[in-house]
């Protein structure tokens, strides 16, 4: 299945793009997706992140579905 992964702030700058489409096995989890990103881009700082699927916060073991939008959310600093 194909999902979209979105990147923000320092992660977006480190990757030099704001999203990736990746192919994952059915029933892949956020953790699986993160492992793939780490393999594709070994220099990305992937620690201290929160995760959202389709704009809802989820834990690392949440399951992805086709066409989901996974967001990797660095520590926020709004306000």
């Amino acid at each position, binding site marked *: 299945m194909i999902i979209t992964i*979105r990147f*923000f*702030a*320092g992660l*977006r*700058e480190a990757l030099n793009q704001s999203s990736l489409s990746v192919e994952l096995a059915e029933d892949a989890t956020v953790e699986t997706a993160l492992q793939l990103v780490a393999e594709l881009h070994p220099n990305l*700082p992937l620690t*201290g992140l929160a995760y*959202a699927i389709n*704009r809802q*916060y989820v834990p690392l073991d949440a399951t992805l579905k086709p066409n989901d939008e996974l*967001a990797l*959310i*660095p*520590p*926020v*600093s*709004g*306000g």
Partner: protein
Amino acid sequence: MQAFLVTESVLQAEPLRALVADAGHGAIVLFEGVARNNFGGRATAFLEYEAYPEMAEQQLALLGQQAQAQFGIGKVAIHHRVGVLQIGETAVLIAIGSAHRGAAFAAVAWLMDQIKLVVPIWKCEHWADGSQEWVGQR
């Protein structure tokens, strides 16, 4: 006007005030978070904010509902600016209408704390020396 908004436009207090005004309210609290010229004493030239806008607006709306349930306030509206902000410009604007002032003061303090914890918006300090840094990230 949307009550919960992420925008590149300059924030205006008056439309938010109008959104939360109610004849049964004895208090309207307006809070502005403003771009400051330093962070921990280090000189800032300007700020840049980035958001995951669709999710940030959902999270702001959720916080508004939670604040209503927790503090018994009336209407809430929150706008957050993104893009480049010069020193002194408003980054976040919160308006709360409430029957009484105490609940509104408590709610606005809680909302600002929650915004800094859960709303997917990021601040980049552009330092006076020309370097830049996403706050809270290395």
